[in-house]
């Protein structure tokens, strides 16, 4: 069979049911093979949408998302999506067409060196030079993308290779001598960590996306109860721990919850699992957990010692290591420490502080209400900006993997295509895309994809006619000299949504929140809710640049 047919057969072998792609000259053969396959191609409106959708799909389906693009501009349009997946360790296989091997390197029409471009933003990539390599490469790509620390892998397939004959069989076992992820943690390191934890008086657990990737949510709950230790999560770790449990403190970092931020600064042992001490979490590094002995568990050895030097490093899979730790941890009880943490939780003067005008619609009121009304089958995706941070603070998912956001790269335009992918991975779920007028306009073309696929996605659009987060930065760091942040050309979003055949709601005051959200949740239709909010609403708490994370500005006027 032809190389292109072989590649599609290999995707079927890997269990792929849905791919996200955009055809073009160099992938004609691939699309012809797709036409005859059991795989459904979701035609997105740009390749960036395809990459983000594959990422949203991967996060819910728990297997690599697949996106396909043609050579040149098709391939470069994938780049932002690939980088987004790379930063958040999302398993993805990106397939790009390439000009025929015979003219590679001649600056041919729609030629770009995509393996060169994506080297720093993929876990691995391939330029296929012979059709017979295809079965081996596809198997390797899925293996690399989904094991160890997951990430994107790109396969660049020249047109003439795709058109030539492939006789190779799909290999059973694959052996990559240079790739052996560590799964099991070192026993003596685990013993040492447990010894420290057993002696701890004020422990804190700090978790990131590693828990979600490893499927260690239930083990984490058991661990926290055994240690009687409160849990702080990163943006990627949201959904790793049930919020209803009183050990849940919320997100930690520059927009973190007060209890989480203060507890991290006052704990005597910090147990970090699948989190990487990102600068948005630690703010001023020397002050972060400065009184604590740090135990760092991560599947990627390069994360250990990169940003902070731990007392006890443990390389391996979170679930496997927690299991081993539970064997030698005593049941602890820290009533005084937990009472102290409880006292740091937000009060009326904390993050729930509202202005005097109760009628005024704010992001936090809407997202707080969404959180109150959420169900076991609700998935929230977000874009990037103020709404994202408010959602991270106030929205508490009731299901695992219930909160999907671009963390590391902070990619505006992620929310809607990610919602498309998430909805396709879980058709029975109710998917909300929480977005802002800035982010939404980066990729709202994917409304057409949602429409074509009959996806009842709910777009919760916060319109303040501003790039709110940039405006907030200008407020705090540029002496309120606002520039290039208001969006005077904004369209009528309601008419725009109607043009795509969506149900629409306009929300202007507090009294409408509950009713509109309830209707949207049950209407089973693609829906856009435009929430008209003021650009004066800032994200609080905020930790200013260079400060310790326990030095928060909690509300407007707070010094």
């Amino acid at each position: 069979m032809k190389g292109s047919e072989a590649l599609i057969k290999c995707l079927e072998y890997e269990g792929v049911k849905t791919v996200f792609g955009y055809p073009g000259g160099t992938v004609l053969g691939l699309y012809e093979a797709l036409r005859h396959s059991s795989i459904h191609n979701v035609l997105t409106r740009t390749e960036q949408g395809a990459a983000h959708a594959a990422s949203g799909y991967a996060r819910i389906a728990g297997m690599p998302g697949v996106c396909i693009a043609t050579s040149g501009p098709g391939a470069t349009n994938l780049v932002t999506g690939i980088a987004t997946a790379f930063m958040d360790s999302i398993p993805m296989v990106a397939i790009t067409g390439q000009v025929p091997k015979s003219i590679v390197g001649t600056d041919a029409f729609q030629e770009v060196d995509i393996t060169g471009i994506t080297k720093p933003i993929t876990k691995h990539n391939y330029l296929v030079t012979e059709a017979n390599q295809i079965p081996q490469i596809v198997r390797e790509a899925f293996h690399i993308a989904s094991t160890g620390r997951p990430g994107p892998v790109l396969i660049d397939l020249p047109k003439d290779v795709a058109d030539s004959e492939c006789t190779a069989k799909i290999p059973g076992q694959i052996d990559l001598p240079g790739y052996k992820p560590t799964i099991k943690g070192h026993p003596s390191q685990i013993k040492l960590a447990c010894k420290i934890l057993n002696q701890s008086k004020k422990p804190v657990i700090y978790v990131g996306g590693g828990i979600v990737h490893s499927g260690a949510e239930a083990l984490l709950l058991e661990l926290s109860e055994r240690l009687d230790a409160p849990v702080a999560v990163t943006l990627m770790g949201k959904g790793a721990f049930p919020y209803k449990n009183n050990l849940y403190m919320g997100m930690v970092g520059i927009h973190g919850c007060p209890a989480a931020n203060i507890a991290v600064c006052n704990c005597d042992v910090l147990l970090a699992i699948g989190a990487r001490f990102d600068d948005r979490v630690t703010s001023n590094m020397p002050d972060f957990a400065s009184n604590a002995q740090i135990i760092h568990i991560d599947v990627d050895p390069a994360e250990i010692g990169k940003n902070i030097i731990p007392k006890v490093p443990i390389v391996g899979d979170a679930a496997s290591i927690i299991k081993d730790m539970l064997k030698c941890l005593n049941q602890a009880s820290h009533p005084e420490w937990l009472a102290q943490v409880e006292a740091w939780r937000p009060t009326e003067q904390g993050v729930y502080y509202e202005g005097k005008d109760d009628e005024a619609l704010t992001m936090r009121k809407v997202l707080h209400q969404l959180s109150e009304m959420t169900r076991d089958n609700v998935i929230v995706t977000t874009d990037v900006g103020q709404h994202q941070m408010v959602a991270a603070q106030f929205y508490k998912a009731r299901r695992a993997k219930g909160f999907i956001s671009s963390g590391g790269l902070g990619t505006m335009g992620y929310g809607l295509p990610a919602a498309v992918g998430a909805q396709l991975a879980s058709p029975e779920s109710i998917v909300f895309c929480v977005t802002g007028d800035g982010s939404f306009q980066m990729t709202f073309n994917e409304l057409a994809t949602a429409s074509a696929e009959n996806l009842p996605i709910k777009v919760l659009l916060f319109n303040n006619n501003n790039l709110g987060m940039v405006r907030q930065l200008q407020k705090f760091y540029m002496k309120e000299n606002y520039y290039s942040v208001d969006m005077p050309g904004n369209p009528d979003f309601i008419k725009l949504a109607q043009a795509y055949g969506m149900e629409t709601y306009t929300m202007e005051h507090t009294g409408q929140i509950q009713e509109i959200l309830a209707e949207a949740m049950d209407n089973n239709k693609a829906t856009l809710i435009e929430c008209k909010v003021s650009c004066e609403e800032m994200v609080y708490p905020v930790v200013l640049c260079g400060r310790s994370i326990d030095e928060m500005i909690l509300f407007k006027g707070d010094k």
Partner: protein
Amino acid sequence: MRHTLSVLVENKAGVLAKIAGLFGRRAYNIESLAVGTTERPDISRMTIVVDADEREIEQVMKQLHKVIEVLKISNITEEEYIERELVLIKVQVDAAKRSEVMQIVDVFRARIVDISPNSLIIEATGEQKKLDAIQEALRTYGIKEIVRTGELAMVRGLK
């Protein structure tokens, strides 16, 4: 501090670019990098000399490990090893000064590999310091061109 890394990699297209790119992107400073085949045709060895402190070199090695084609990394800095580098130096010299230069070449146990009416090419091998010294000694005669291979290293004895 100067570290010498001996890195075994799969002999595949693009591996060198990947590794060079990794050093560039993470702002690690390569002093020299030499690549060649080994006793196995499918495996190449890179000898990389990096100027880095302890924490940086640990990151360098960990990041290198993440490259799928990298098979083994040894930091041989603290071990007993033989290091060699080869240099070709073209010196502008006429017949009058030629014998002086030839004496220097003898002292360093280097070799003259080409003679033209106005120039010589000298080949020298040795440790970096020796090559620096011969370069310095020849500088007064007018060096026109220098090509150095970068350091090669091999740990002594059988392990």
